[in-house]
């Protein structure tokens, strides 16, 4: 298990979403994981992540956002700053 894993509930929900989208055990999703760090998080994997985030958080992601949400930290910041972190 990665050492860099927080107990923050939002981060954990993001990690769960990424785990499902990328088909990687949740232990493999660290808080500082970013696009390209795993072979599964490539272009296709990234779009799986986007769709999973839409589903899990009830949000609609546009083209601009797709290019910005390239790390666990960026996703958390986006959800927090847009008040989208409430449970879906």
């Amino acid at each position, binding site marked *: 298990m990665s050492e860099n894993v927080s107990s923050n509930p939002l981060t954990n929900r993001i990690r769960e979403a990424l785990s499902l989208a990328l088909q990687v055990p949740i232990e493999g999703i660290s808080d500082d994981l970013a696009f390209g760090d795993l072979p599964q998080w*490539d272009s296709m994997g*990234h779009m799986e992540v986007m*769709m999973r985030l839409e589903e899990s958080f009830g949000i609609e*992601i*546009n*083209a*601009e956002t797709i290019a910005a949400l390239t790390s666990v930290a960026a996703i958390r910041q986006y959800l927090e700053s847009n008040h989208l972190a409430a449970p879906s």
Partner: protein
Amino acid sequence: MTSSSLQFAAAVTIPDHLIGEVHSKLAYVDERIAKAHISPSGDQITLELKYAIPAAERAAIEEKVQRVVLSMAKGAIRPKVQVLEDYLDRPTPFAADPMPELLRRGELFQEAEGIYALGPLFTRLIEWFENRFLQLADSFSARPYRFPTLIPARFLERVGYFRAFPHSLSFATHLRTDLDQIDAFAEGASCDEHGHLKVPLESFAPVRTLLSPAVCYHLYFTLADQTLPPQGVVATAVGNCFRYESLNLHSLERLWNFTMREVIFVGDKEFVLANRELARQRMQRVFGEIGFAYRVESANDPFFIGEFRKQAAFQSAFQLKYEIRARLPFKDGTLAVGSYNYHQDFFGRHLNIRLPDGSPAHTGCVAFGLERIAFAFLAQFGFDSIHWPSSMQEVFG
């Protein structure tokens, strides 16, 4: 009851930005489709079939069409269109479709759908543009390469090409190395009235090669499993490319067999992006000198339906591809005659091309469709060289 047409509501409304993309994919749905139409509102689809078929078979075709619609349009993300240059309103002296005149003059000879032999004027025009593209390559000290027309299936498999573009593949094989098979072929091979070669499939050897769909792939394969020099790699090559377009094959606008000149960059992200941008600026000057009417805008590759929604959205979001779209005055439309592409580290990862620090290399290329750019030029400037740009009059007199 049999019928040769079919009209039905789309399973989901096709957004306006996807109508052209979905329409182009309907060409691959069923061999019995002669023509497809999607209403401007994106909610009605009409198919004309080559002959009347029973209701059950029409229903099966409709089901396949709905699969395409759902796969491409459901939950589609609207692309962020970015225009880098817009010179579409440059005045140009010609407004007719050059195809009839090209055929009348014997400048074009259609060998088959999407396959043309080109005459002297067209060939010299292509050479003129080729010289400009070679000057562009020289400005980067690009190293020249020659690549084969065939490409091994295992190469394309390694970069996921079969999943992304299965519909446009062209396969190459040969007779099995068996004297009986070769003798039987030599004795009996003939074409039917449709031009189909009547040969049993078992006469052919297993497919290990295809006709190459792109030029730059060959360079990436030569670099596979290697570490790049610190200064990166810049290369240039011209080659035949093959992309089967089914019902979409149309004049010189959409060929099955075409020629592409590429300038290719391999290195770190900054190296590739800076050179791609430099190439765009240099070509902007070339196009400006001849008064070419065009626009450079973000685009996506024609991924097949299963991959389209995700891959196209990704390309759009990260602005990976820009097309040079030339104006075709005769149809009040545009035609992609080239593109500026960035693949991130896709090829670096899949082919294990490494930077000196061990990380995957990034790649990019600028590509020009030679037949298309010459065609677009004739569509804008016509056949009378007195109306052509002065720099070209010196060559064509």
